[in-house]
């Protein structure tokens, strides 16, 4: 294994540990209590939060911005594909069919990411809501995806690809990309909050 390969493994490890530490750090704050008698079901609420509750059918914000939602989904699919591709290159297992499939997903993800970046720059309110980190996070991930696609065609460019991957892993915990961990935390809270109160999943039209 080359030094850069070790660098990728180490930075990914640091990233995971730092993300876990960030989540654990929230536990330095007091624990919220939940003493009111439950009306619905926290478990059903959670299932909903990770299932139907993420779809545009359930969420007005996604429904009214369907293109953005779809672009976001493609972006994230591309990122997962990129991470798989990176892992495959590290372990040296690269069947042509898998590489071809991942390449398409990663390329689409890169274009989607750049589309979201363009949206952030173009819409005045979104631009004003954003800070440098929002742009940087997007750019670093786009760079990673682009490097992955290029590497899939030109395997000799492993060095730059790995350097970008290391940079990305080290940036993840300090900037907004930490939402890759906090997303799950938030969906659990969302599901338990609305689930316990019997608001979600929607009970549908029924006799009281």
């Amino acid at each position, binding site marked *: 294994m080359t030094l850069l390969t070790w660098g990728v493994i180490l930075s990914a490890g640091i990233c995971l540990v730092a993300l876990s530490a*960030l989540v654990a*750090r*929230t*536990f*330095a*704050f*007091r*624990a*919220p*209590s*939940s*003493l*009111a*008698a439950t*009306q*619905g079901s926290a478990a059903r609420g959670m299932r909903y939060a990770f299932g139907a509750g993420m779809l545009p059918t359930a*969420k*007005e*914000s*996604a429904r*009214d*911005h369907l293109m*953005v*939602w779809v672009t*976001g989904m493609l972006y994230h699919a591309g990122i997962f594909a990129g991470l798989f591709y990176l892992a495959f290159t590290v372990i040296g297992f690269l069947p042509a069919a898998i590489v071809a499939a991942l390449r398409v997903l990663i390329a689409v993800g890169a274009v989607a990411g750049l589309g979201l970046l363009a949206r*952030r720059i173009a*819409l005045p*309110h*979104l631009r*004003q*809501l*954003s*800070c*440098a*980190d*929002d742009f*940087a996070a997007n750019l670093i991930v786009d760079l990673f995806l682009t490097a992955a696609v290029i590497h899939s065609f030109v395997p000799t460019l492993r060095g730059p690809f790995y350097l970008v991957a290391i940079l990305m892993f080290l940036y993840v915990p*300090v*900037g*907004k990309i930490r*939402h890759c961990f*906090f*997303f799950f*935390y*938030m*969906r659990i*809270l*969302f*599901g338990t*909050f*609305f689930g316990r*109160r*019997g*608001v*979600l999943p*929607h*009970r549908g*039209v029924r*006799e*009281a």
Partner: protein
Amino acid sequence: MKPEPINAGPLEDRVEALKPDDLTRALEEFRAVMTRDHAAALASCVHCGLCSETCHYYLATRRLDAIPAYKLGLVASVFRRHEGLLGKVAPGWVGARTLNHETIKAWIDALFGRCSLCGRCALNCTMGINITAAIRAARGVLAALDLVPPGLKSTVDTALIKGNNMGISENDFVETLAWLEGEMQSDAGFETARMYVEETGCRMLYTLNPREVMFFPLSIVAVAKIFHAAGESWTFSKDGFDVTNYGLYDGSDAHAGTMSGRLVTSMERLGAGTLVLAECGHGFNSNRWEAPQWLNRRYPFEVKSILQVVAGYLRDGRIKVDAAQNTQPVTLHDPCNLVRLGGIVEEQRYLLRHTARDFREMTPNREHNYCCGGGGGQLAMTNYADRRLEAGRIKADQIRRTGAKIVAVPCHNCIDQLMELNKHYGLGVELKTVCELVANALVVEP
């Protein structure tokens, strides 16, 4: 994030007068009100902006500072500055802000002045962030600094000092009930109906919004008639009758706990079985869902909305109704704290389907319904009245589209706001509580 020029309105001078010690105290309070869930929420926003159009303030004004993520960002930026790694070393990079005079002004202006704590953004956030809870927590910091806008502060103070938010004395309350009892008994079929006060061992202790006593006595009579028709065992407490809780809105758990604690004391003193909450959105959310946390105890009794109770009567055949008594087209307003944040969704619909000939839903409805704009203490904060009416346009449009002549409103705060919207936007509708419509449709044996 670039905030537009802001000021703290009537609190401007008080904010300017804050000393470094006060700001240190504010930061300590900030840390104290934060739970681990808040802390996680404040680290989670991805600035996607998709929550913008979920907020009626933004829909009505299209202002940056009306966007939920902007309001959340005001709180999150302070969290990042004082608790985050990059926020400490490179605050500009991650949009971190120090908790200083300008930040506090921005908090007052946006968190009190442009939010009704309706929860609609929380329902729709891409991540699932409870934006509303974070905003309320930050309001709590302002409350600890005594920086609550004057109208809301005086409402809270009145409730804390006098025992209810209108400052009604025990004598006045009991006398008003006696007068209402006489009026009620003059209606055919209700000659023996009673307004019970301070009865012990009843199945139910009923609470109300003090505004009913002052301005909407027919709402009280309606519920008493339904209880009578159902043969219910019920009572008022002479001192613990106020269902409202403006501590939910000023953000102070201590204030809120004191108010809800009075109802618990009345329940225990009178030995009632179920605490029944009047048609009041925030009163329901406060006393059903939040108060056990404020008081740090599980309730040994049930807490129900009057809508659950009355729906139960109808389902069990304890009351009979005739929809022919309500022939005008009726639509239903879903109070945020009762429905989206409270989980009372279908009971009111069940009742209206049986008591009104022509019941029409608004679009959107149930947990997706728009806030009327009167929640979050907005009705009390008169310095933000123009914003409140402007934001209420979304609800006014919703009502107009139904073509209904009557709006059933299971919340007296919402009724106050809708009365103003009715006038301001020329809606030409009548506003009634659900129980008023049920009482009007009651079939009683002479």
